[in-house]
């Protein structure tokens, strides 16, 4: 009886760690994952209906580190939520994860960060123009070699000498339009890429969409 409860306790500790690693996954899904693995461990570790400590130990070793196991579920979950999501924060969160798995993810992450950055910058500019009418806007200057340079200024600080306000008050509607457009486009681009990647994690087939070939490193547990 004592052995039984000790074995049971080992299982509970493992599953608790796993559950902690599953944070962020929908509660019902996380519960199902935990119950499925509990069922696996119990069946694997039982001899004639009785749990043995050695059985539990070997079952847990074969399942591997609970944090690593959880992170495999997390990757899949993040990608599927990101694909359905319209929230830039959630999308960026999953792009960071993807970037840690493959080089293609790094490119999509950098592209999306740039898209969101300039989108938000333009929106900010449009909003700040009424507050800093004299200094906010797109300013064009010619440097000593005569090259044209355009800088975005939010209105904090001085404008460069001899600079010309390119758009004037047009920056308000144009900034809003292009800024919002850029944010939406970036979201669309990122979710499309995530969707392609998600499906490519199942063997890509000929003639079906783009053939993505990602080298994955799933927590370095390939060797097992």
């Amino acid at each position, binding site marked *: 009886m004592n052995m039984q409860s000790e074995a049971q306790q080992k299982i509970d500790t493992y599953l608790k760690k796993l559950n902690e690693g599953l944070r962020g996954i929908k509660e019902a899904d996380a519960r199902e994952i935990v119950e499925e693995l509990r069922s*696996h461990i119990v069946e694997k570790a039982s001899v004639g209906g009785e749990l043995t400590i050695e059985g539990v130990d070997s079952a847990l070793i074969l399942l*591997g580190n609970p944090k690593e*196991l959880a992170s495999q579920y997390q990757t*899949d979950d993040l990608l599927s939520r990101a694909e359905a999501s319209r929230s830039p924060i959630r999308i960026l969160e999953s792009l960071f994860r993807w970037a840690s798995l493959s080089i293609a993810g790094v490119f999509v992450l950098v592209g999306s960060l740039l898209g969101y950055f300039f989108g938000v910058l333009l929106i900010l500019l449009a909003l700040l123009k009424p507050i800093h009418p004299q200094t906010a806007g797109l300013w064009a200057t010619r440097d000593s070699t005569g090259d044209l340079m355009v800088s975005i200024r939010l209105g904090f600080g001085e404008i460069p000498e001899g600079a010309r306000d390119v758009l004037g008050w047009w920056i308000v509607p144009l900034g809003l339009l292009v800024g919002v457009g850029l944010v939406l486009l970036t979201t669309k681009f990122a979710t499309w890429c995530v969707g392609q990647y998600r499906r490519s994690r199942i*063997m890509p087939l000929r003639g079906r969409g783009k053939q993505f070939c990602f080298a994955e490193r799933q927590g370095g547990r390939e060797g097992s």
Partner: protein
Amino acid sequence: MKENDARDRESGHKWEVQLRKGCLELVILAVLWDGKLYGLEILRRLEDDSDLVVSEGTVYPLLSRLKALGLLKSEWVESEGGHPRKYYALTADGKQRAREMAAVWARFAGSMSKLVDPLAKGK
């Protein structure tokens, strides 16, 4: 010289790991072709063939991913022992996908065999 040998063996091993990994989804879909199985049963089926052994920590997240993609469905069934088991079965999409993947595999394996059989026989 010895270092080179070790490196060759290492990269050979990596190549084998990638090769197995690329086939893992098809392995799972194929093992479920004849009907529903639960996780441990799938693992035991694969253990029967030492070339197909898969780590347990890989199979469960993979099953959940295949389900999220709509290729598998699952149901909980109470066992005689009293604890519930989560059974997986192919959906219509899953069957379709398994057939497509099997066709690609057969073509590829055929071409590869034709090419490398002489090497394996050491001619």
